[in-house]
């Protein structure tokens, strides 16, 4: 599927600087002891990797920088992590969970 299909759609690439927009909140749910993302009419349950990525999405770090940091932290191949993060963040951007 073409990545630039809809005008106005956020397309995530290595140079994108992702962040959670206003109205999207990631927090630790004490009752259930897990991380949640709250957005309009949605509750997401991110896994540990998604949490680690999203915690670095401050609107300042580029996806490339985030990949480099995570590659370092987890001692994993940077190119692989970069590809995975772009895919993950594109999915979240399509749901309105991240902007860039």
């Amino acid at each position, binding site marked *: 599927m073409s990545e630039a299909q809809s005008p106005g759609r956020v397309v995530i690439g290595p140079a994108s600087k992702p962040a959670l927009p*206003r109205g999207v909140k990631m927090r630790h*749910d004490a009752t259930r002891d897990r991380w949640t993302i*709250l957005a309009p009419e949605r509750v997401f349950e991110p896994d540990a990797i998604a949490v680690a990525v999203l915690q670095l999405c401050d609107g300042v770090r580029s996806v490339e920088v985030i990949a480099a940091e995570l590659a370092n932290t987890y001692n994993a191949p940077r190119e692989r992590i970069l590809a995975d993060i772009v895919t993950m963040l594109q999915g979240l951007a399509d749901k309105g969970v991240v902007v860039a």
Partner: protein
Amino acid sequence: MLAELTHRCPLQCPYCSNPLELERVAGELPTQVWLDVLAQAAELGVLHLHLSGGEPTVRQDLEAIVAQAAKVGLYSNLITAAVTLTRERLDRLAAAGLDHVQISIQDAAPDNADRIAHYRGGHAKKLEAARWVREIGLPLTINAPIHRQNIASLPAIIELAVSLGARRLEVAHVQYYGWALRNRQALMPTRQQVLTSAQLVERARERLRGVLTIDFVVPDYYASRPKPCMGGWGRGSLNITPSGKVLPCHAAETIPGLVFENVRDRSLREIWLGSEAFNRFRGTGWMPEPCRSCAFREVDWGGCRCQALAFAGDAGLTDPACAKSPLHAEFAAVAGREAAQEPPPLVFRNPRAATAS
């Protein structure tokens, strides 16, 4: 948690999900009780708070309620008709910590929208309020319930939501309870209209991927699988009425023999976990056959009890929306029959019509 702050509303939508017996203003919970309930809700593990009604903005203490939601960590959604809003009020609510605004629209065509809402000039006010929400920077959802009297506008409604900068659009077909059930013959679309609308939504979802999220459901009458009503009875949602009654769903008070407890008398935790009403249809133990051994029992949780009551005469029976119900064919036939006839006049939602019903 759906917090129905009041049943007062300037609109008179004929499909309103409030019960026919609208609650009196004098019985509304005072501010302090709502603040305490919100704190209890957060402690219980509620994540989303829906501030609704009636029209929640007729409550002067709405800012205090929103501030409390922010303080205790509840995500606040304002569910509003928006005709009573001013820019200043929205600024105050945003400053108090409001997370999200959902504005209802009744059609994309202004005259028909105002006719359905029974409120002249309402549509224009909603568009203005939507602009303010986006100027302030809050996320916006447009909610346009679909029925035979606005279904032709579905494409225009989708375009309107995009042009207003909404990130989400709800175009659910009206669900037939309360006032909508009262007006069913005037609102029920044909099967073909429903199918066409579903195809239209699918195409729009592809075209607008990453731009607009569209939530859509068909009327139960044309389904073959029942909906997982409320995500399952007493499983993840609760409603609090303006007078403080805690309900598993909007229409639960229609079920005879259930007693609904009040937040003034008992803690929310005790009501949620221990009340007879919440436990009556929770889980799968109450299910009759064919539900009890059905592979989908933990997918749809038995569908809708209120619908089983309304159509099968007993809230403990199989939801007629399910193809496995012996009443399923008759249920679908009712919809087809009513949709084929001329719509009768709408009974508009107001306290006078409530007592006349």
